[in-house]
């Protein structure tokens, strides 16, 4: 994404990601007995490169896999983790299922709305954060309330911890490192003796 932005800023035509990553694409397709199975992997690749799945990404995937454009879009639109519109650099998804909801998830959503100045479904004006709530349980019920940012986990997110996470990302923290450092409790603690809320 950053490389393309830089290229555009210099007035040069940006090389599409599928040309740059042709070898990765071939390798992905080769893993499967049938090429069509690589469709979801290619959609993930597009989203990693662009932050979302654009119409031209679907055009490319359809052509590369020999599928109709409508087929690609029908698959893409079935899955809630693919964004078919531009989103913020960090997509915050708060778990909205029962266990997180009962243990502070709902007030966490309100807190984040206030802190980020956006409603659920919206992106901050600086393009950094999109706030979403999922009805799907994110499989972190012992760490309720939990959220994910670009599919990285954060457990037991109190309002203070939410502020800490947002602040760290604004200051350029590495997401994966941040999740490992403050998002997850040590396995022993999380899985066997998670402290009571």
């Amino acid at each position, binding site marked *: 994404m950053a490389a393309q932005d830089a290229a555009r800023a210099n007035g040069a035509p940006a090389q599409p990601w599928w040309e740059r990553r042709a070898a990765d694409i071939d390798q992905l397709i080769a893993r499967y007995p049938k090429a069509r*199975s690589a469709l*979801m992997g290619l959609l993930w690749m597009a989203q990693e490169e662009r932050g979302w799945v654009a119409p031209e990404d679907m055009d490319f995937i359809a052509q590369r896999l020999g599928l109709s454009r409508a087929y690609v879009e029908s*698959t893409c639109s079935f899955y809630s983790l693919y964004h078919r519109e531009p989103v913020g650099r960090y997509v915050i998804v708060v778990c909205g299922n029962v266990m997180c*909801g*009962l243990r502070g998830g709902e007030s966490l959503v309100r807190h984040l709305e206030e802190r980020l100045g956006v409603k659920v479904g919206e992106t901050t004006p600086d393009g950094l954060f999109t706030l979403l709530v999922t009805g799907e349980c994110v499989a972190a019920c012992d760490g309720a309330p939990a959220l994910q940012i670009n*599919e990285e986990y954060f457990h037991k997110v109190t309002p203070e911890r939410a502020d800490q996470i947002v602040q760290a990302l604004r200051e350029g923290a590495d997401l994966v490192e941040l999740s490992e450092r403050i998002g997850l409790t040590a396995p022993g603690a999380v*899985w066997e003796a998670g402290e*009571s809320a």
Partner: protein
Amino acid sequence: MKYEKVLTKGIGEVDLTRIENYEAQGGYQALRKALKSMTPAEVHEEVKKANLRGRGGAGFPAGVKWGFLPDDGRPRYLCCNADESEPGTFNNRMLIEFNPHLLIEGILLAAYAVRAARSFIYLRGEFRKGYRVLMDAIEQARAKGYLGDKILGTDFSQEIVVHRGAGAYICGEETGLLSSLEGGRGEPRIKPPFPAVAGLYGMPTVVNNVETLCNVPFIVDRGADWFLSIGTEKSPGTKIFSVSGFVRRPGNYELPLGITLRELIEDVAGGMLPGSELKAVQPGGASSPVLLPEHLDLPLDFDSVQQAGSILGTAGVMVFDQSVCMVRTALYYADFFSHESCGQCTPCREGTAWTARILRRLEHGQGRPEDIEVLKSLRTTMSGTTICLLSDFSITFLQSVLKHFAHEFEAHIQGRACLAERPREVRSA
């Protein structure tokens, strides 16, 4: 009581994502044993004898499932269902993130037993860390000769392909999983034909849950008799219970099947939170009917829980206290199932949406007297009328609370305050 950990041994103590640590505690011994001294049929027989029942929810014996594959020369595929999405369940995620080599070894053994041409792990899209861990573990295993061509110098070759889902609960249903793995919408297919006969790309396919496959190395290594000595007669082995809700120590606990609900909640999970009284328990995820305090001495095995009117399911044990409103909880689930219905079948697509709509108006104090009868009638209109079981399972919790907590529904309709002790804010959709 202290129980021996099997699948979770070492988790939280050593870094089992490093292959040398996994090997140091006996890892990949079973694979070596099977490839060097057992035929595929012998591995299959051992798993069958162990009566390893599927840990993903249905409790169907894995060895019997493997036996359904027709021997007709077509390529066979093995799919590990790692799309763990059942609300209240988080044990597969732990196994994947903290013990990936156990899963890889289990897949290799199962692939050997069923003579699979290729194996797939259908991994939930939300498990990005799990994806990194698995991809790394696969390369470690390959470097050691446990995976790839001519494994450990034998004629057995196998590749494991990790396929990332992208946020769809229905892909945990085995035929929805196969549709998704083929690059399509995760829409379930009518059975029969079952995947064993016409699965991935129309070929004979086995679909097994993560935890089920993680049991296989131990059965091969220590034998079926050892496995049968744990748990109950009809539900042998251990199960990882994911406990959440109003207990002191929520978490994953590996225990013999047949442990009582009381021991799980009061001893293992540290009891209820201060000020919390047990109101109801779902023993196996969102689709399991509630158990009540009177069931505390119920043994948690597949058959006992079923006899008590619920299901062990995924063993995602959700513990509710007196502050939890059952109408509101039912609304949470209704919203969830409505969103996750794939939309193919009218009773499910329309039924889940209307269930949510009716419960929402109840929750907002605008319920109508006839709503309770309408909700009860879903038992006939939404059960047994669709391609897969999402529709049936979307209303099992609701039916159980309509029965056991009818007064809460009536109070909502009569416009009285919510009966839960600490009613919380109404959730707007």
